[in-house]
C-alpha cells in the first residue's frame, strides 16, 4: 500500500494543480477496478488537456453519461483517491469534474 510518507510528499503538489480547467481528450469507464477502488466503481478515467497544454490522466467525478465525450470541459478538484491505509492516513489527489 501507499506509504504515509509518500502521501505527505505528494500532497505538497496538489495545490499547484487545483483550480485549473481543461477538456477531455479520451476516456474510459472502469467497471472492474483494482484493489482499493471497489467502492467507487464504475468510474470514468480520462486523459485531460489542461488550458496550459499539459496533459494529465485523472478520474472523473460528479459525472453524467452525456458528459463523457471528447471536448467536454472539466476543472480540477481535490478528492479522496483510494481507501485509507492501515495507518489511517487518507490519500487525497486531483480528480476532474465536468463544468
Amino acid at each position, binding site marked *: 500500500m501507499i506509504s504515509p510518507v509518500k502521501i505527505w510528499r*505528494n500532497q505538497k503538489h496538489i495545490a499547484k494543480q487545483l483550480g485549473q480547467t481543461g477538456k477531455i*481528450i*479520451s*476516456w*474510459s*469507464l*472502469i*467497471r*472492474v*477496478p*483494482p*484493489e*482499493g*477502488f*471497489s467502492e*467507487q*466503481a464504475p*468510474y470514468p*478515467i*480520462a*486523459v*485531460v488537456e489542461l488550458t496550459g497544454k499539459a*496533459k*494529465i*490522466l*485523472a*478520474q472523473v467525478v460528479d459525472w453524467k453519461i452525456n458528459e463523457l465525450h*471528447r471536448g467536454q470541459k472539466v476543472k480540477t478538484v481535490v478528492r479522496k*483517491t*483510494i481507501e485509507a491505509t492501515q495507518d489511517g492516513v487518507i*490519500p487525497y*489527489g486531483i*480528480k476532474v469534474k465536468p463544468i
Partner: protein
Amino acid sequence: MNITVLGTGMTVFGERWETSPRALARDAVKQAIVDSGCEHKHIQALYVANMLSGMLGMQGHLGALFAEELGLSVPAYTVEGACASGGLAIHTAVLGIMSGQYDTVLVLGVEKMTDHKPEQVSSALMGAGSNEERLAGATFPGLYAILTRSHMEAYGTTEKALASVAVKNHYHASLNPKAQFQKSITVEAVLRSSCVADPLKLLDCSPVTDGAAAVILSKRKTNTGVSIIASQVASDTLGIAERESLTTLIASTRASEKAFIQSGVSQKDIQVVEVHDCFTIAEILALEDMGFVKKGEVGNRISEGEFTLGKAKQVVVNSSGGLKACGHPVGATGVKQIVEITNQLRGRCKSRQISNARVGLTHNVGGTGATAVVHILRKDTI
C-alpha cells in the same frame, strides 16, 4: 549479429493451480535443454524474466532461486520490464553473448498469476504504469480503452474490427495444444461479452495466465538452426497522458525501425509475426506502428482474413493464439514469442504450420508502450 536459438521449451499455458513456479520452470527448461542437445554444463548464464513475483508472491532474487532450482551454478540475472520482461531478457542475453562473456545461455520467462485475487493481480500489473495512473484508479484495460477510443475517433475503427482480432487469435489457439483457450469464438460472442472498461469487453482482453517458456541461445552454429538477426529495445513515457499521440505506441515504431536496419530485412520479407496483443487494439496498433499496414487500414483487413493461417496473403499474425488466446503469463510472454517463431521457422508447428516461413518477428510491449522489444529471426540456410 550471430546468435543461434539452440533449443526452445514451454509449458502448457493456463490456470495451473496445481503447479508451482519452480515446477513450471523445470518443465520449460527441460524441454529446451533436450531440444538444444546441450547439457547443463554447457550453459554459462541464466536470465530470468518475471514481473510480479516480488509484488504478489513476496519473492525476489529470482536469478539465484531458479539457478538453484535448475541445478545451474552460473551467473544468474533477473530482468524486469513489465509485460516486456521476456523480450527484454532475451535482449539482455543476446548482449551477454555479443559481449564475448558467454557462448551459450539460458533465458527463462516465468509467471504465476492465478494464485492471487484478480483485483490484487490488477493492482500489481499497474506497477507498470505511472503513479498518476494508479491514483486515478486506472487499470490496463482502462488505459488501452482510452487508446481504443482515440483510435476509433481518429480512424473509424469499429468494435467489430477489434473483435475480429480476438476471433483470429482464438482460431489460431484452437490449433495450439499449449494454448490457454483452445477454442474458436465468434464476433458476436466478443461483442456480447461483458464490458470491462468501455469500449473494451472481456473477450477483447488477454487472460490471467500461469506459464513458463525457455530458450537456449548460443553463438554456436547448427545445421538446422534459427538465428536472431536483430534485437532492439525502445522506451517511451511511463504514463499515456504525457504522450503526443494516443493512437501510436511510438516505442514500437522506434524498436522495429532499428531492428529492420540491424537485420537488413523489411516488412515484406517476413512471413510470421508474434505481436503483443494484450488487448485487441494492441494488435492493430502493433501492425500499424511497425509499418505492416497503413494507420487506420488494419481493422477491416484482419476481419477479411489477411493475417489468418491458411488465408494470409503475406504475413500470419499471432499463430500461437497470441497473448489473447494462447495466454499471457506476463514475464513469460516475450520468451514464448521467440519459442513460437523458432518453431515456425523450423517447421515444427503441425496443424498451425505456416508453409515456407523463413523470416519471423516478435514484438513485446511493457505497460502501455513504455517499453517495446522487437526481435527478428531467420531460418539458417544450410
